[in-house]
């Protein structure tokens, strides 16, 4: 069995030396697949992605236990540009574009992976996102939400990533726009041969595209499986898909309900 492209092994991430945001999670991302990381706010999903892509200590956070292995190499606690140079690129949740640079400059600023054909990559970005090509000289700060997300993905593509980490693609965007972006991502993945790790609060759309999914709660993985398995799981249906056991919509919040007996039962 070929080893996975990315493997997390009992990963622990600590903020300010006192707050453990991620408490020992293990997951595998096989090459060429789409893996989804689900969970509600505060579960530790974004922290996990940022740990993979390299903290810069801005939030005084460190990986304290466990390992992140990419292609057999340990990449935890490395500066972000080194991780990008290895082929792991992040599309962040917030501050995802350079606001005062134009769209074209945003793409130009990227330093592609050593050995990658920079010119071909940039042309590929305009090809996949013709809407962006029309906005080349617009300042990024003046783009709409959907255009901004397109630019964020585009500038990540210009790094020539093998593994693309996408944080909350759907946040703040209309469902149709999200659908279009996801379709675009699938196309890109086939065309450029990438692996995707998606972090999503919107479980429904994530389960539509993913090959495999992990559910995170309070910094721990509580469930994982194929979308088919998860869609039929009672708790996923109740708390993440909003379809309760009796078929009616159920908005009870994940964190408030004491379900420990069910998990262990």
């Amino acid at each position, binding site marked *: 069995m070929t080893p996975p492209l990315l493997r997390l092994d009992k990963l622990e991430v600590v903020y300010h030396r006192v707050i453990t945001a991620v408490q020992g999670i293990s997951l595998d991302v096989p090459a060429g697949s789409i893996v989804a990381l689900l969970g509600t706010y505060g579960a530790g999903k974004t922290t996990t992605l940022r740990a993979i*892509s*390299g903290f*810069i*200590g*801005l939030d005084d956070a460190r990986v304290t236990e466990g390992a992140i292995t990419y292609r057999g190499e340990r990449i935890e606690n490395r*500066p*972000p*540009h080194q991780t*990008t*140079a290895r082929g792991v*690129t*992040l599309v*962040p949740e917030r*501050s*995802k*574009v*350079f*606001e*005062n*640079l134009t769209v074209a*400059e*945003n793409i*130009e*600023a*990227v*330093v*592609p*992976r050593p050995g990658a054909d920079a010119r071909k990559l940039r042309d590929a970005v305009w090809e996949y996102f013709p809407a962006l090509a029309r906005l080349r000289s617009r300042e990024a700060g003046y783009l709409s939400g959907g255009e901004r997300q397109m630019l964020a993905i585009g*500038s*990540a593509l*210009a*790094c020539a990533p093998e593994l693309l980490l996408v944080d909350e693609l759907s946040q703040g965007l209309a469902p149709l726009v999200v659908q279009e972006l996801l379709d675009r991502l699938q196309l890109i993945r086939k065309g450029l041969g990438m692996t995707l790790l998606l972090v999503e609060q919107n479980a429904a759309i994530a389960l539509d595209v993913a090959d495999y999914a992990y559910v995170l709660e309070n910094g721990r993985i509580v469930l994982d499986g194929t979308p088919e398995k998860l869609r039929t799981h009672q708790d996923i249906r109740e708390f993440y898909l909003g379809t309760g056991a009796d078929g009616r919509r159920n908005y009870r919040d994940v964190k408030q309900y004491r379900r420990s007996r069910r998990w262990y039962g």
Partner: protein
Amino acid sequence: MQLAVNIAVLAAIYALISCGYVLIYRVSRVLSLAHGELMMLGAYGLAMTASLFAGHPLIAIAASAVLALLVGVLVYALLMWRMTGESVLAAVLTTIALGILLRGAMILAFGTQTQYPLRDLGWTNSSVAIGESARISSAGLTLVLGTAAVYAGLFVFLRASRWGIRMRAAGQNPLLAAQRGIRLHGVYALAWGLATFTGGMAGMLIACDAGIEATLVTVGLKAFPAALVGGLDSLLGALAGSLIIAASEVLLINYVDPLLSDVVPFFVLLAMLVIRPWGLFGTKEELDRV
């Protein structure tokens, strides 16, 4: 008319020095108050290379310029990189301490006498006539033209070249820049190198005009309000600010009181801080942010 010439020369001096402040601040968000001393170091560098390469003035100048660039990169590589991510106060105080260290070291190394590198270069500071009623020294003329060239070069570099765009990106959003493969330390070192290069150039030209003496450092300190008035992260602002400060200084010295020369820049600065703290062309930072 002579007043206008004086203003132009003084503005050129301030502009050349303040673009260093702006470069470093824009790219790494650090206010380098060691700039006056680095400028003086550039002047002494010229004095050294001038006597070393006596008879080959162009080589001396080129060597001195390269030296200034290297010193800037060294300052970052040896000291300032440790302060990235620390508080604003700590970084600024480090530059102040560096300035003090440099000033003491320069006196120890070069003594306190006024030096005239122009003599070693074998050139004379002749006077050139402008129009019918004004004169300008050739060093002054070189200053004005040189400043214009430097600014033009910087504008082109930052707007059009790939590394210039990367420098601007790193200044705006360091984390995102790092995630897009930009090596922040390299960009910061480049900014420091360029800043020390332009500051050193200013020092060298002033040294050719008036010689190197202890008061050179105060010129560096007075250029700092020019950078702030224009907006600490805008080159265009540095130009505008330098013109305003130079004009106020020359006019007030001439028509009101010569003693005011040292304090006028700070008057203007204070006025600007009250009216518009982020300067004429600076990006409005969230000054009240939590």
